[in-house]
């Protein structure tokens, strides 16, 4: 493996002659020897766990960096470098023989090779580099910088821990809490013990650090889902509100907190504020996975029932379409009423969740079957969103759908015609139209039913003038 012994001896001799304490040799040594030296000298050590015999890039990493004197010279003192080689295709005996060389190594769960674990002299694992993060920093400058920062953080940690001991002796709980917060904020692996100590020093969590450190991420979302399913919506509303006030949350946590809030609000049928919360989740964490997931989920559970605009996957998302003109004020009449029509489902055409039957209204099969929507006053129509009835076969009935507008419900101006049947249509008008009535009709050559799940019309109200003819 490594030409360790001779290198160690040469390095130790050379450096011990040249250096003065507390500087220690920056050498590559065998694992157990490194652990012993780390304890004796009270310096951290960086352990490379690699599979150089089966992963050629790891060998390159060792040759170019870990075992390269040019690189190790640039490293910050005090730090020891050591390594463990995990082989593949070994017999049980071979594996046991190898394992005898690193008996004291405890953190053996390696998610991806190679991996660097950085330990304090007391054996606490303080930093882990693996996967893409390690590959990105596998240049001499980047790796040196990271190791330097980590060593500095470890030194700082040691200093803070000493101050914490003193604060405890002095029974200065406020200082102790402040110092613990500083340790927790260092860019090192999280430490459950420190959180427990902080809970004692700052039981009210005045810094918000405990909430931040114990925030359960997506498990928290599962918890909120559980509350909603158990019909404990008031509790969900209360819990989600509390988290939004935590200023220590990072963007990912905040996105989840906003998303959880959106879920609770949607469960309470407050769809517009719910959608706003989901949008806020995305705005808080614009490039992170949580913000995006919350936006996508919010589009389904809040945006659609809120009827507030086009969904995130639409080309018209976040474009100016004005307000919803139908949700709160509009009414409609049908050209005919089929026995399948259920008036109780009519409100779902413009607001809230869609009807469970898959359609909000149902005309008879007739020529030019139509629904006429009365916006109650003349408005500037900018866009429309039409949801077809569910069911692949019956959706075909809407293949000839048209939209016409009128100021008097007598003279109609055709604006748009569908090319084919589809799940839903998103229509943004190239030029806006002033209208009070909107007719959605079929233009089929033979009699046909008209049945839609939802209609949302968007634009501006022209409230300043009396519009009713």
């Amino acid at each position, binding site marked *: 493996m490594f030409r360790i012994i001779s290198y160690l001896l040469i390095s130790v001799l050379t450096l011990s002659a040249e250096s003065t304490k507390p500087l220690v040799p920056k050498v590559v040594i065998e694992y157990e020897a490194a652990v012993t030296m780390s304890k004796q000298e009270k310096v951290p050590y960086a352990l490379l766990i690699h599979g150089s015999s089966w992963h050629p890039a790891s060998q390159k990493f060792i040759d170019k960096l870990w075992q390269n004197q040019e690189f190790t010279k640039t490293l910050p003192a005090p730090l020891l470098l050591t390594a463990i080689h995990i082989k593949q295709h070994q017999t049980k005996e071979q594996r046991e023989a190898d394992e005898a060389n690193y008996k004291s190594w405890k953190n053996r769960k390696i998610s991806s090779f190679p991996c660097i674990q950085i330990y304090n002299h007391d054996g606490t694992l303080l930093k882990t580099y693996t996967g893409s993060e390690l590959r990105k920093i596998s240049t001499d400058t980047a790796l040196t910088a990271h190791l330097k920062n980590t060593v500095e953080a470890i030194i700082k940690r040691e200093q803070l821990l000493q101050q914490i001991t003193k604060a405890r002796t002095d029974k200065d709980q406020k200082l102790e809490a402040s110092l613990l917060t500083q340790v927790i904020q260092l860019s090192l692996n999280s430490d459950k013990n420190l959180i427990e100590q902080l809970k004692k020093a700052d039981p009210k969590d005045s810094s918000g650090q405990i909430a931040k450190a114990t925030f359960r991420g997506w498990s928290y979302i599962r918890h909120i889902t559980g509350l909603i399913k158990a019909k404990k919506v008031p509790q969900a509303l209360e819990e989600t509100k509390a988290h939004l006030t935590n200023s220590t949350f990072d963007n990912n946590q905040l996105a989840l907190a906003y998303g959880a809030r959106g879920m609770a609000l949607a469960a309470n049928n407050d769809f517009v504020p719910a959608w706003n919360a989901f949008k806020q989740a995305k705005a808080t964490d614009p490039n992170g996975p949580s913000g995006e997931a*919350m936006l996508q989920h919010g589009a*389904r559970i809040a945006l659609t029932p809120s009827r507030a605009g086009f969904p995130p996957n639409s080309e018209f998302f976040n474009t100016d379409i004005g307000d919803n003109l139908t949700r709160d004020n509009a009414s409609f009449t049908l050209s005919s009423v089929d026995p399948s029509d259920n008036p109780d489902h009519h409100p779902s055409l413009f607001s809230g969740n869609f009807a469970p039957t898959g359609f909000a209204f149902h005309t008879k099969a007739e020529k030019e079957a139509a629904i006429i929507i009365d916006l109650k006053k003349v408005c500037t129509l900018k866009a429309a969103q039409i949801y077809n009835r569910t069911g692949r076969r019956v959706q075909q009935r809407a293949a000839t759908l048209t939209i016409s507008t009128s100021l008097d419900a007598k003279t109609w101006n055709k604006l748009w015609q569908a090319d084919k049947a589809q799940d839903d249509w998103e229509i943004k008008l190239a030029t806006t139209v002033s209208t009070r009535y909107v007719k959605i009709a079929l233009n089929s050559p033979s009699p046909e039913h008209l049945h839609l799940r939802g209609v949302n019309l968007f634009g501006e109200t022209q409230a300043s003038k009396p519009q009713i003819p």
Partner: protein
Amino acid sequence: MKQSHQYHSISFRKIILFFIISLSTLSAAPSSTELIKAHVTTMLDSAELEGDAAEKFKTALLNSQEWQHQLCDSGPVQKPEIVIQTLYALWKADPALASNPIDQEMATACALEAPRKGHTPEQSIERYTYFRDKWQAGLLNTMYADLSVFQRRYLASGVQHGHLNSIESMQYQNEEVCLPAEKYTGACWYAAYQLHNPFGDSIHGPLYYRPFSQSWGNAAEMIRNVGGVCGSLSNFGAAAAIANGVPAATMGEPGHCAYTVMINQNKWQPAYSLSWKRGLHTSYHGSTWGWHMLNVKSQESWDKAKQSGNLRRLAQHQLNAKQAENARITIRKARLELPSDWQNWQLSVDILIASEAIDSHWETLHQDALKVLSPLSGEISYHLISKSIYPKVLPKDKESAKQRYKILKSFQQSITDWGVGRWDYQATLRDQIKRLNGNADQQDKFMLDTFATHAEKNIFTPAILETQLANIGKDETRKQRFIATLAKSLSNSKGGDFSKVINTMAAKVLPDAAKRGDKSSFQFIGKLTAQSYPATTFKTEPFPGILLSSGGTFGIQKPGNRYDNPARHWGVIEPHGGDFHTATKPATATIQLGNFGKLSGVNIVTRNGNFHRMKNAILQTSEDGKTWSDAHTFTKAKRSYHIDLSSKNINAGYVRVIQNNDSSIHFHLFHVYGKKQN
């Protein structure tokens, strides 16, 4: 005009080749070099390649005999014209591959898989480039260098869930799940087993991954973060191996999805597998595990695979040249030399049909299958025999009942074990019973004969018993008669009592079944034996979840020692209760769980005495039955143990107790609870 010119060009080349080969047949058989070149030339012609580089590509391919063999002898070739068109596209994208053996093999594998997976040339180029570049950068497992084209086909094919085959997903897994080859069998657990996503949507609906589809740049990262059930987890595990240059494939099992990894040269290890009834999603000729293992075996020696291909091409040539006798001799040589290559058997059948072979030729094929294919795989042998040979050799008339019986029995005599992999032996038995034309006496005699044939090894006997009992149905008189006759064939039995027959058989069958991980035999015989000993009265407090141990297998070292009755082993892991007693150091008692799961706890009730023997024993768990982790140490000596494992986050398919300090441990109950994860 262009087509016409091309037609003339192809015809001219074919005429010349035909002329050369015909001349050679007149004098002597064409050489294998000539035959493979002619075969590849035909493939090239069928591809109708266009572009200035086409001639250069053809020259490169036709000048390399090794490349031609890689193309023709690395498993079945489907849609050769698309294979060639893809290979041409790959070569145009990277002409240097012709001079780099590893890249050439990988490109050939990508071309062979293109028509099977519906890959466009662009997709094939993308996949090939991934492996080429990653290998050059040293970022693939060193196993990659030594893979055959056949093995590379699993890399080229990818996994069942297409989104995990994207370059972005592979890139992610190359970075984040880079492991020693044998560790990929545990890679499925990188993703948590979650039936519902955080929003409560079930994985069985369309909404489970939908909110997350844009959250990460690739499916692998999404699955790792969101979770999934056996399908997503197994696909993740297999895809991780593939992304690192280690062949793997996903497999369907009854109500479950598993995967397999080639952890070492030609050593395929099932992972997250619960049953032997596996159907591979990357498969050749047939999808079962037996087919897979047979195909692997046929490619173990590249020289033999090439030689086999040479013989097939010669036999085909001889058949085309109306030399049927020579063709039959040549293909017989091929199947006897490399019986694991299914193409040798398929071509044997094709030649016999094409040459309107007489009965004795079919009988020769039948005898060859019994002699050299059955020992490798009874499954594939019976597939061949029942589909292609029985219609020719099995007489149908009533007068030939004896002859028919003898022929059917000859198959049973040709198999002694499972061969390359466990298969549906019961389906074979049912088929054979059917071919006895509904004569109950003959069926019973045949099953008794079959039982006697396999009694010594006891591998097939549980299946024979189960099939025959089902076949007899509710006819108690017939059943009694059958059992009585069966009992006589069991050496230690003193009479026709069914429970004695079963107990005698169980003592041998249960330990063997446990050793092989054969859950169905263990369970079938175990349940029958439970009727002959009382259920436990000891009450234990169950842990959350289900009894994961139920439905599994249980075994100890040295079963059947002077203190142990293996006929009672089944009850130990079931609510019924049973007992066992080890007699060798280290004492071990091992459960292969009926269901893979996240463990919540273990209940153990020991025999009422010598409690000290459990002191310092260790409870261990394992995902694969090979690598074990400590879960609990028994510090106290007592009658029963209630071990809570809920906080330990253990996923396991196996649980055992190992006592390094004593040769004897003895339980009545060994119950493992948890949340099923399959």
